[in-house]
């Protein structure tokens, strides 16, 4: 029989697509069901953060950093604020350091809950998403109690925080942590060890360790490939060295190291580690005034700095150049999702259409941060 002439089909996924986690267009070249090539097109959510930052004063940039990675805006503030404090070398009171770690880790749990939940939807299981969001609501209530907002906080300021912890914050946070352990176990029963879920994610989108490093990936994507690399431990900032917790890496339990299941499981286990950190931080938090070190006018000396923190999505870096005036001369943000998305073509070639969605979900990208 003559060779059946088959042709490649170009399928456009996005920018308005149920599972691209935002406005991202994937131009997928398919040969039948097998993916030949994927080209991500970004820029649909570009809001010129860097041009705005040059027109604002230092404290006014903070609400803009909230809106970059809107799922972990507490950590965006944390990175920006620590960078500016290093420029002005302000020493923050102890209590503020503890509050920042507590808020950062709670935000990491909330972000991972969204990542895990939407990954479940991408694979087809709808119920775990709602359990994750039910727990996330409790974290958002904790944030609303402290700073008044649920998603975009503008809570961490240069030199301190805007409000001190309300009196009933610590008991409520402890109660949340106790319940949260049960719901992690429930999530594992329902999704993580479900045979169909394992079938859909193990040995899919395998990312070898050296390609991950060469592509500059960071966060759960890098740790999923078995690289023990966490800024809180390897390039320490703030007071993470006072708590004992361990860095979680993918070990390839269900398939090879560095597949979608590993990246997913790293996030689930990281939530447990963050619970441990918050518990210890709630124990050791000292008293003190939180707004004492906030300068009346933030005017850093001329110079430039690159400072990076371990945001829930990966290495979030701020490159701030100040020319001594009230407004920053240049603020460049190295967004983790921007770099992690680059490997989507690398890990998707040769797999099936359904696996692109699984790979994309396991990278946990947010378009606000990619397009800035």
């Amino acid at each position, binding site marked *: 029989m003559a060779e059946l002439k088959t042709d490649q*089909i170009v*399928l456009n*996924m996005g920018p308005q*697509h*149920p*599972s691209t986690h935002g406005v991202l267009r994937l131009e997928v070249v398919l040969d039948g*069901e097998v993916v030949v090539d994927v080209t991500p097109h970004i820029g649909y959510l570009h809001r010129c953060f860097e041009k705005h930052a040059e027109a604002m004063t230092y404290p006014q940039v903070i609400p803009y950093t909230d809106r970059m990675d809107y799922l972990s805006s507490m950590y965006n503030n944390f990175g920006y604020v620590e960078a500016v404090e290093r420029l002005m070398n302000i020493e923050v009171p102890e209590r503020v350091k503890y509050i920042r770690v507590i808020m950062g880790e709670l935000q990491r749990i909330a972000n991972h809950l969204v990542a895990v939940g939407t990954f*479940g*939807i*991408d*694979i*087809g*299981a*709808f*119920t775990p998403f*709602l*359990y994750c969001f*039910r727990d996330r609501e409790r974290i958002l209530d904790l944030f609303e109690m402290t700073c008044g907002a649920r998603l975009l906080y503008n809570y961490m300021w240069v030199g301190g925080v805007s409000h001190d912890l309300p009196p009933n914050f610590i008991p409520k946070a402890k109660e949340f942590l106790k319940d949260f352990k049960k719901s992690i176990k429930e999530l594992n029963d*329902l*999704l993580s060890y*479900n045979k*169909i*879920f394992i*079938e*859909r994610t193990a040995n899919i989108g395998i990312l070898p360790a050296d390609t991950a490093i060469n592509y500059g990936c960071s966060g759960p994507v890098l740790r999923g490939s078995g690289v023990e690399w966490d800024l809180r431990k390897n390039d320490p900032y703030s007071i993470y060295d006072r708590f004992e917790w361990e860095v979680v890496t993918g070990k390839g339990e269900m398939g090879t190291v560095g597949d979608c299941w590993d990246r997913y499981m790293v996030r689930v286990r990281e939530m447990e580690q963050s619970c441990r950190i918050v518990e210890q931080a709630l124990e050791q938090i000292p008293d003190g005034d939180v707004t004492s070190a906030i300068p009346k006018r933030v005017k850093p000396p001329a110079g430039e700095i690159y400072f990076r923190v371990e945001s829930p999505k990966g290495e979030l870096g701020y490159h701030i150049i100040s020319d001594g005036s009230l407004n920053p001369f240049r603020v460049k943000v190295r967004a983790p999702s921007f770099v992690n998305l680059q490997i989507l073509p690398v890990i998707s070639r040769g797999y*099936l*259409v*359904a*696996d*692109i*969605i699984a790979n994309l979900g396991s990278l946990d990208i947010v378009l606000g941060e990619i397009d800035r």
Partner: protein
Amino acid sequence: MIPDKLAEFFGVNFLGYLIAAALPLFLWILPYALYAVYAERKISAFMQDRIGPNRVGPKGLFQTIADILKLIQKEDIVPSSADKPLFIAAPYVIFTGTFAAFAALPFSSIYIGSNINLGVFYILAISSFSVVGILMAGWAGNNKYSLYGAMRSVAQIVSYEVPALLAIVSAVMVIGTLNLNEISEMQTARFWNWWIFGGPLQGIQKFLLIIPMIIAFIIFFIASLAEVNRTPFDIPEAESELVAGFHTEYTGMKFAMFFLAEYGNMFVVSAISVSIFFGGWQSPFGYLGNSLGISWLVPFEQVFWFLFKGSFLVLIQMWLRWTLPRLRVDQLMTVCWKYLTPYAFVNLVLIGIITLI
């Protein structure tokens, strides 16, 4: 039987039987489909710690009726580059595939749409007729996603016919007849006489049959899930990658047709497994009518039990939908050809041996 009485009443045989076969549509499918959608939304809500529809009518009971009304007055868009005749015909082809199967379902001892001897064979054949409709819908929408959805669902339904039929054949081998009414009659009053528990046979054979019959039921249930595009196998309308599969381009009443067909199909499939494995219209604990001596009540009880068991299996299908993730297309094929079919064959041989003892 009612169809014969109807035939005498109208004088013309053909008319009487036609009405008898069409009766389930108005009495059961429409109300059932409405409240199956409502039940699905309520169950999924309760499983996910939320409340589900409770605004339209008491406890949200009229929600689906409101949905249908909304769908009716929605604009019925036919995409410009669509293949018009196919596009318009597709939903009705799918619905006829489902509704035709209702004709042979044994609702009660005195009422069965058409008491044909090849009942089981007819239902399984006619229910795979809707594959044609899905292919038409997928192709006519002229949209890459729906084309993908259609290709996948055709592959899925056709390949899952094999384990489904094997499971039925292994069961029917013991039962002996294909006429659904007789099958139900065999499984007399008490539930341990149902075929899933070895049927009305005596002695060692009944005891040996229990395990293979349960395996046959499980295989048939999984295969029927695939035939109806329900959860672990709902790849044709996988929202995450194919937007909405073959019914992406449909709006308004045509979309409602797809919904109706899907829920109708769910009931047909669970009705088959009920009538073969769970004693059709037999009640598990004997009839109230007999014990109270009101004999005319018995047929109504039988209809109640048949519909109750069918709906119970539909609820299990819904329960599965909100628990399990979705299989990929090639895994779907591996499950069918590498797992279900071999097990079905082993089961067939096993039951064959047992019948010889």
